[in-house]
């Protein structure tokens, strides 16, 4: 059997689910599994991508997925290399990561999988980032202490926050701002973050969307959590907005969301110290900064056209706020190889990377948000990852029956002559720079991560919380300690 030596660029859930599937479908003791190697490279020192640096702290149960990732990592055909940035990126937001050109990596592997996700926040045309206008991602990076070192938001000097966008990231940020530090202390929220939250003077969060409740991207669970907030209440929504159009055929999720909205929050409006509002059919058209430092946002009122696009009705209203947070989704890094500017992610067909001429690049794949765009919950990432693993197996062992998902891999498209990966490889080789990085303690292996993980949990337990996170410098010092 020809070896299958796969480099995975990116170490989030999609990467680990592909790895896990390949390792279990190609068991060690079978000929097809004997020459399998999977090496995951992540630009961050810690693995698991958005599970560590994205999932809201008050959703600890979501993090149970890492047990399966640990199982995959326990296979001796698997290795993890943290702190390695492979290929170009548009901004070097991880200063301490080792930078490795793609060809320095690819010469060691027969296969490459891009599981690089969508790392760039989509901005709003009229709301450029400033000290008063931030992306939700920078807030998430702050409360998860992501290695990009986002500045803390000035929560102690503001009372009104406006979120632009009505997806789950938006509701996560709203929930974090409205929950209060005491509700979050038990979770994986770093002390430096809790310190800022304890001083928060935020009293109201407006959540603005240019379309209506049936188009909102948030899911029922996240909306219900908002409705159940202990110290906050939802301001009444214009009942006309909550009337379904007469000919509308609502999905189960849409109907249940509508019911929740009609019922409103558990706390009666204005009965609580904090409040929130859902401002449907409003689209920021301009803003100005007032002498007080507040922002005045001019909101265009919108309605839906036949294609459910938001179009301006010509009316406007003004909203004064202290901080604008844009939560408008994410896209892949345009500096990456195989990025398609029209799609805003990598160009793929059934998980295979497609070059600009429409041909598949042999043995090069993409999965997760890098391939699909930034949408879908973990379950869709899992199913996509399994399907990509099946495609890799079907391409590598033609004619063999191996696919176990009900998603049959499609026939391979025309394959390009270009070759990014190597034909002949040494099974255990890794790039010299990575080898050196491991020796220097700059590149982190999975066992080292598990040591940090255990220490973080231990430090958390001492404070009665889920975990106390380390930053890179702390982790590096911890790992360099004499054992």
């Amino acid at each position, binding site marked *: 059997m020809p070896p299958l030596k796969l480099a995975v660029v990116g170490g989030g859930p999609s990467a680990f689910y592909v790895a896990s599937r390949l390792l279990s479908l190609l068991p060690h003791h079978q000929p097809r599994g004997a020459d399998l190697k999977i090496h995951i490279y992540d630009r961050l020192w810690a693995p698991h991508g958005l599970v560590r640096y994205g999932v809201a702290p008050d*959703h600890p149960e979501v993090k149970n997925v890492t047990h399966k990732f640990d199982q995959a990592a326990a296979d001796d055909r698997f290795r993890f290399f943290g702190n390695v940035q492979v290929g170009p990126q548009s901004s070097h937001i991880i200063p301490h990561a080792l930078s490795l050109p793609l060809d320095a990596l690819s010469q060691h592997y027969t296969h490459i999988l891009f599981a690089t996700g969508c790392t760039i926040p989509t901005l709003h045309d009229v709301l450029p980032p400033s000290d008063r206008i931030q992306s939700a991602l920078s807030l998430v990076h702050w409360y998860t202490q992501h290695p990009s070192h986002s500045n803390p938001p000035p929560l102690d000097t503001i009372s009104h926050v406006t979120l632009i966008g009505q997806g789950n990231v938006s509701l996560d940020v709203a929930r974090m701002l409205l929950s209060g530090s005491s509700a979050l202390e038990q979770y994986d929220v770093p002390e430096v973050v809790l310190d800022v939250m304890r001083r928060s003077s935020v009293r109201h969060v407006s959540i603005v969307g240019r379309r209506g409740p049936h188009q909102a991207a948030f899911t029922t669970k996240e909306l219900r959590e908002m409705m159940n907030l202990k110290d906050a209440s939802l301001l009444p929504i214009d009942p006309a907005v909550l009337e379904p159009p007469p000919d509308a055929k609502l999905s189960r999720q849409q109907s249940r969301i509508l019911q929740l909205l009609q019922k409103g929050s558990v706390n009666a409006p204005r009965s609580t110290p904090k409040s929130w509002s859902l401002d449907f059919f409003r689209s920021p058209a301009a803003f100005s900064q007032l002498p007080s430092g507040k922002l005045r946002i001019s909101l265009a009122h919108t309605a839906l056209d036949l294609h459910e696009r938001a179009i301006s009705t010509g009316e406007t209203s003004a909203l004064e706020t202290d901080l604008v947070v844009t939560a408008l989704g994410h896209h892949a890094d345009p500096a990456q190889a195989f990025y398609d500017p029209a799609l805003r992610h990598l160009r793929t067909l059934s998980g295979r990377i497609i070059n600009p001429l429409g041909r598949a690049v042999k043995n090069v794949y993409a999965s997760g948000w890098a391939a699909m765009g930034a949408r879908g919950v973990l379950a869709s990432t899992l199913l996509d990852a399994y399907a990509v693993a099946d495609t890799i197996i079907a391409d590598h062992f033609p004619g063999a029956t191996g696919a176990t998902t009900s998603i049959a891999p499609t026939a391979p498209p025309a394959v390009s002559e270009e070759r990014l990966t190597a034909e002949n490889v040494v099974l255990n080789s890794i790039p010299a720079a990575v080898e050196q990085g491991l020796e220097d303690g700059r590149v982190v292996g999975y066992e080292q991560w598990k040591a940090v993980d255990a220490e973080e949990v231990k430090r958390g337990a001492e404070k009665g919380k889920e975990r106390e996170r380390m930053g890179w410098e702390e982790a590096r010092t911890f790992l360099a300690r004499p054992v």
Partner: protein
Amino acid sequence: MSRPRLAVHALARCRPSLRVAGLPRAPHGAPRRALHATVVRQHGSITRPEPGTGIKLNFRDAKGDVLKVVEANEGDDILSIAHEHDIDLEGACEGSVACSTCHVILSPQHYDLIPEPEDDENDMLDMAFGLTDTSRLGCQVKLTRTLDGMDVQLPSATRNMFVDGKKPTHH
């Protein structure tokens, strides 16, 4: 069987704390405490009944073909039973009702015998692929004697879920 599974199996044997079969359901609306209550649904998390004495379940694939007929005990949940018998049913959040990966479709006559799903389960079912009128999360269905002979079908997943290169417009 793959090696990693064996490794965890061994771990589960030597660490009883990893063998918790299920978290207690949190009361409605209360946050679910799942911080360190590691729920690993692997072999050994439930015990198999003496053959011929248990509650029979017919696991079926997405096409309706029988994968396995298994027996289990009263109180066992479908996700744990599936893992005990190597049925390919995911349980990404390990029974904490934070995902929909253990979605199963039950035979209608048995579905009606099970207490209705709570809000949190329904919220997750909202996002399940291939949802039907008799869909449940496997982790939330505990067996009773009346469910003997129940069909448990895995939902179908299709490539259509992942539209390569197309993005719905949001304008």
